[in-house]
C-alpha cells in the first residue's frame, strides 16, 4: 500500500515536468584546411539518411542548444552524453559533452586525436568499416529525459578491440584435416595379364613334349605309390595355404606331421619301384 501511493504522488508531479528539446542542432564536417565538406542541420523528426563519412584528418563539429520546449529558455542539464554504438559488434562508448549555462554546447571530433570513449572501428571481412550509431542522451532531475538518435558515422579503420588468447576456445574452432599419403599407384591390370601369359608360355612347350615322350601312368593307383603321391600333393597344398593365410608356426606344425607321414609313404613307394627294377 505504502509504495503504491508513493508512486502515484510522483506520477502526478511528473505530469508537470517540463520537456526539453534541442534548438538549432547542426553538424559540420570540415577537412584539415578548413573547407566545409558537409554542413547540415539535424532534424529531430527524421534521422539523417546518409551516414556521415569522416576521413583521417577531417573534423566533425556538432553544435546545439538545450532549451525548454514551452518557453525556449536555455537549460544546463546534468547529463549530456553522446553515445557511439556499433550495432554489429555491440561496442559502445559514451562521451560527455560540456554544456554552458545558457544551454549552448559544441563538440569536436577529430579522428587523429580520438577521445578515449570512441569504440574501435576495425575493417570487417568485406573491407568496409561498420557505421557507428550516434545518440544524444540528455538527463536532468527537473525535466523529462531526452534521447535523440542522430546520424550514423563512418570513421576511418582502426585496430580491432583486443581479444583474450583463450577466447578462441570458447567458440567453434575450424576443422582440421590430415593429408594422407596418396595411395600407391598400381600398374595397369592388362600389363599384368600379358606378363602372366608370358610366364605361362613354357607350359605349352612342356605339355607338347610330354605328349610325345611321357610314359603312361599305369601304376598310379597301386597301393604303394598312391599314398606318396597324395602326400606330395598335401605338401603342395600346405605351402599354398601358408601363402594364403597361415602363420609360420602353424605351418611348421602341420608340416612336421605331414613330413612324418611322407617319410613312410615315400619309403614305401620308392621301395616298390626299386623292387620293380630288380625284377
Amino acid at each position, binding site marked *: 500500500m505504502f*509504495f503504491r501511493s508513493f508512486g502515484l504522488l510522483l*506520477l502526478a*508531479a*511528473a505530469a508537470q*515536468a517540463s520537456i526539453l528539446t534541442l534548438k538549432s542542432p547542426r553538424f559540420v564536417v570540415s577537412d584539415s584546411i578548413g573547407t566545409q565538406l558537409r554542413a547540415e542541420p539535424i532534424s529531430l523528426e527524421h534521422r539523417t539518411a546518409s551516414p556521415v563519412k569522416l576521413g583521417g584528418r577531417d573534423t566533425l563539429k556538432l553544435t546545439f542548444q538545450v532549451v525548454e520546449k514551452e518557453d525556449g529558455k536555455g537549460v*544546463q*542539464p*546534468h*547529463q*549530456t*552524453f553522446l553515445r557511439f*554504438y556499433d550495432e554489429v559488434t555491440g*561496442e*559502445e*562508448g*559514451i*562521451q*560527455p559533452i*560540456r554544456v554552458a549555462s545558457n544551454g549552448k554546447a559544441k563538440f569536436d571530433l577529430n579522428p587523429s586525436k580520438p577521445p578515449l570513449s570512441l569504440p574501435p572501428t576495425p575493417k570487417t571481412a568485406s573491407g568496409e568499416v561498420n557505421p557507428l550509431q550516434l*545518440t544524444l*542522451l540528455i*538527463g*536532468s*532531475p527537473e525535466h*523529462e*529525459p531526452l*534521447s535523440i538518435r542522430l546520424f550514423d558515422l563512418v570513421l576511418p579503420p582502426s585496430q580491432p578491440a*583486443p*581479444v583474450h588468447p583463450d*577466447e578462441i*576456445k*570458447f567458440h*567453434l574452432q*575450424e*576443422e*582440421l*584435416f*590430415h593429408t*594422407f*599419403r596418396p595411395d600407391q599407384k598400381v600398374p595397369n*591390370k592388362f600389363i*599384368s595379364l600379358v*606378363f*602372366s601369359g608370358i*610366364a*605361362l608360355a613354357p*607350359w605349352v612347350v612342356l605339355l607338347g613334349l610330354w605328349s610325345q615322350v*611321357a*610314359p*603312361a601312368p*599305369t*601304376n*598310379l593307383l597301386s597301393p604303394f*605309390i598312391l599314398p*606318396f603321391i597324395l602326400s606330395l600333393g598335401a605338401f603342395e597344398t600346405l605351402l*599354398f595355404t601358408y601363402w594364403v593365410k597361415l602363420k609360420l608356426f602353424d605351418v611348421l606344425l602341420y608340416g612336421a606331421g605331414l613330413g612324418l607321414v611322407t617319410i613312410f609313404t615315400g619309403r614305401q*613307394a620308392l621301395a616298390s*619301384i626299386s623292387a620293380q*627294377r630288380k*625284377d
Partner: protein
Amino acid sequence: MFSIRRWCLLALSVASLLCADAKSSTGDSVLVVVDPKNQDQYSTFFELILYTDGGYVLTFRSPKAEGPVVIEDDAPNFAHVILLAPEARNLGKDITPQSIVQLLSRKTNVIVALPTKQSPLHSLAARRDTPSTLIPIKVEDHSSPALTKHIEPVWFSGIPASLGSNPLLVPILRAPSESFASETTVTSGSADAVADSVERGGEGLWAGSSLSLVTGFQATNGARITFVGGAEIFSDELAQKETERHRQSGNAAFSREVAAWTFQENLVLRIDKVEHHLVNATEPNEQYTNNDQVVFSTYISKWNPTKGKWEPYSGLKDLQLEFTMLDPFIRTSLPPVRGAPGKYSTSFRAPDRHGVFKFVVDYKRKGWTSLESSTTVPVVPPRHDGYPRFLSAAWPYYTGAISTSVAFFLFSTIWLAGEVNERKRSKGSKAE
C-alpha cells in the same frame, strides 16, 4: 517483526514445503553472512527463493561472529556461501579474498555483494520519479547465458564494474546505456561535475552498457562466483516495487536465476563415459594402426534441477573432438546420435603418422560448465603382415611360382606312376 503480507507469503511457502522446486547439483548447505539487523529485509530471498524453491539449508552468521567457519583444515564446510554484508568492514578472520579463492578452488560457489562506497551508478535519462541511485533496468531475453527465463524489468541500486576481456566472465546484468557512475550525488552538484570527472580520471567516464552490474565468473574447475553491485537487488522492498505499467518488478525472478546459476543448478554438464573402438568392433583396442577407421563416442549428461538428477542431454550442437599429438592432427565435430540420448559419436581415419595420440574433448562455452576429457592411445605403423596383399602387379610372379609347384607335382606323379622297363634293358645290354 514480520508484516501481515510476509506472514501470508510464508504460509504459502510452508504449504509448498514438501515440493522443493529446484535442486543444486553440488549440495544444499548454504552459509549466509548477513547483519542480523538487515536479515528481514531479504526474507523473500531467503525464505521463498532459497529455502522453499531451492531446497537449500541456510545457516546464518553475523559479520562480527567467528563461526561457523567457512573452510576448516582445507575442506569447505558448506557447499555455497552468500556474503550479503556490504557495509561490514571485515567479515571475520576466515573470510578474506585469499580464502574466497581457496573456496573456489575447493568447488564452493559464492555470491558476493560488493560494498557501495565507490562511485554509485546513476541514471538521469530514465524515469523521472525514481531517485537517481535506483535504476530500473530492462532485461533483454538472451542478453546473458545465465538467464534462462524472461525477466521483467529489475530495480538496481549499487556500483558498476568494468569488465576485462577474460572469457571466463559471464556478465549477467549490464547497465543501461543511459547510466553512468559518479562519486557525488548528481542531483545536488553542478552540471559540470560529470564532464569534470572525465578530465580528472585517466580512463574516462564509466558509463553505458559496457559496465556490468551483476557479473558471474566461472573458474576452470567449474566453481562459480557472482559479484553483485549492491545487496538491495535481493531486498523485499525492490521485489515488490512496481515498474511502469503497474507490473511487479522482476527482482525476485532475477534473484532466483542468479542463485540458480551460481549454485550449480542451471547450465551444468558432465561427461559420463568416453569410448573408442574400430568401426566394426565394440571393444576398445589397446592400440590402433595407421589409416584405421576409428569410432569415438562420448556420453554427456545435464543436471535437471527440477528433478534433481543427471539426465542425458543431446542438445550440444557444436561439440568437437581433437585427435592430438602435441598439436591437433584432426579436429572434427561430434554430432549427437539420433536414437541414443546423450550420445555423441563420430568416426575418422587415423593419421599416417605413428605416435602416441590423445582423444581430446574440450568444450567451453560462456556460462556452461567446461567439459574436458583426454584419452591416450598409441597409433602404430602396420605390422609386417598388415600391408595389402595379392596385388594385381604381382600376378606374373604368382603364376610363375604356382606353375613351378604344379609342374613338380605332375612330373613326380608321372615318374612314379610310369613303367620301369627301359632301364633294365639298357642295363642288361651294357653288361653283355
